[in-house]
């Protein structure tokens, strides 16, 4: 069988298509930062343990350090650069700013991408390890601080801004709920 160690892929990032040739060893994280100058996504541990590199792939939060670029071909990728609408920040971004959800800021893009997905996962009724009764008949869990802490546990913050991060996620989730309700009314 003929073998090849690189491929041409088309990465659909923040609604824009980028076609490039990648060595198969390239992670999505390295493709974003080193090839496409999208340096908002951060490299922390590079082992899937810290969450700094979190992006959304087909709407689902993913650690881009363990995702091969070649396996990301044709999938829809959203990075922190793609969350705002023009000058209007995403509610999660605005809440992190307003409530001091960071200190040094290095983990922040990953925290924000993760929080965007947490709010969607919760809205879809997903339980978590903090959910007392996972059976559907128990109904969706309220997004309590305990639930937020558990759902955000894949994002480490070495400055320890967790208290404000939990508050920021809670506020953004409440705003998102209100917007959804207003849109439905």
């Amino acid at each position, binding site marked *: 069988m003929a073998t090849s*160690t690189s491929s041409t892929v088309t990465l659909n990032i923040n609604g824009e298509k980028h076609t490039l040739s990648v060595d198969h060893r390239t992670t999505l994280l390295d493709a974003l930062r080193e090839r496409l100058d999208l340096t908002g996504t951060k490299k922390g541990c590079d082992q899937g343990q810290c969450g700094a590199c979190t992006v959304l792939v087909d709407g*689902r939060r993913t650690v881009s350090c363990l995702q091969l670029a070649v*396996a990301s071909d044709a999938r829809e990728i959203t990075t922190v650069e793609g969350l705002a609408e023009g000058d209007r920040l995403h509610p999660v971004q605005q809440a992190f700013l307003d409530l001091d959800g960071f200190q040094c800021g290095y983990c922040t893009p990953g925290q924000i991408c993760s929080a965007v997905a947490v709010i969607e996962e919760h809205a879809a009724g997903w339980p978590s390890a903090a959910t007392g009764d996972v059976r559907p008949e128990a109904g969706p869990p309220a997004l309590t601080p305990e639930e937020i802490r558990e759902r955000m546990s894949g994002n480490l913050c070495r400055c320890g801004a967790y208290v404000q991060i939990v508050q920021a996620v809670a506020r953004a989730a409440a705003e998102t709920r209100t917007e959804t309700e207003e849109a439905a009314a």
Partner: protein
Amino acid sequence: MKEFDYRRADDVSGAVALLGDDPDARYLGGGTNLVDLMKSGVERPARLVDVRTLPLDRIEPADDGGLRIGATVTNSDLAAHPGIRNRYPALAQAVLAGASGQLRNMATVGGNLLQRTRCGYFTDVSKPCNKRVPGSGCPAVEGEHHNHAVLGASEHCVAVHPSDMGVALTAFDAVVSYETADGAAELPLADLYLPVGETPHRETALPPGALITGVTLPPARVAARSRYRKVRERASYAFAIGSVAAALDVSGGVVREARLAFGAVASRPWRAHTAERVLTGAPATAEYFAAAADAELAAARPLPDNGYKVTLMRNLVVAVLSELAEEAAR
């Protein structure tokens, strides 16, 4: 990382053909374990066959009334599935107790079963390890082993299987479906993992080149009252130091049926058949729950620094079964 060829399979037979009988080829699912091991040099495949996009991403009713879970269903989708949460709640809890939201979105059911141990000697290529380099020795026996096996290990390897999902699947008699060039086949999850003995590098009974295509849960009424409890060194996002998947059917204060499996104590998810036999027909009280745990753990052979696991598992069993019994009495 070593350079490698990459292929994406369109269907199951195509994936099996792409892998062939090449011992240096690997299937790529979510990659959460494999890509990490490739970075550290533990895995050095010459070719990856990407199976993530195969049409195996559904959870469907099985003919016998159970549920069939496709191999590429993600941990997230498994844990969120209403049928799983309703009929096998301990399985949803086990999956949710593992890893992080990001990793659960990527990781697949097939990959979960075939993930490798997190033993620090296995993951460090500068150290000897009988699992990684057969015959090189096991430094864990006399070294760092506070999180290693107390059941079913050998002097050649004391590593534990890290899966939470697998513990609940084992308690519920899951059956693994796989495909080879000879066609489809299946084997009980209980028979998937080989005894450690002198060959810790031989981990599963799957034939070379086999691709796991799914896992089937037989119908089990007892599973509707089930629970997974995991103990770890921090509150979230850590591997277990001990865990229990339990299901209990109690009637008139007597145990009619019990299911019990342990995690993080052996090279595989450990089904506690001895304890189940003690429980069946016994009064549903803490005293008998403890006796059942003791009967199972009589086979434990702890090392100097992991004897705490025997006590931990006994306490876990009593606590989880007591909660289930209390729930049943309500």
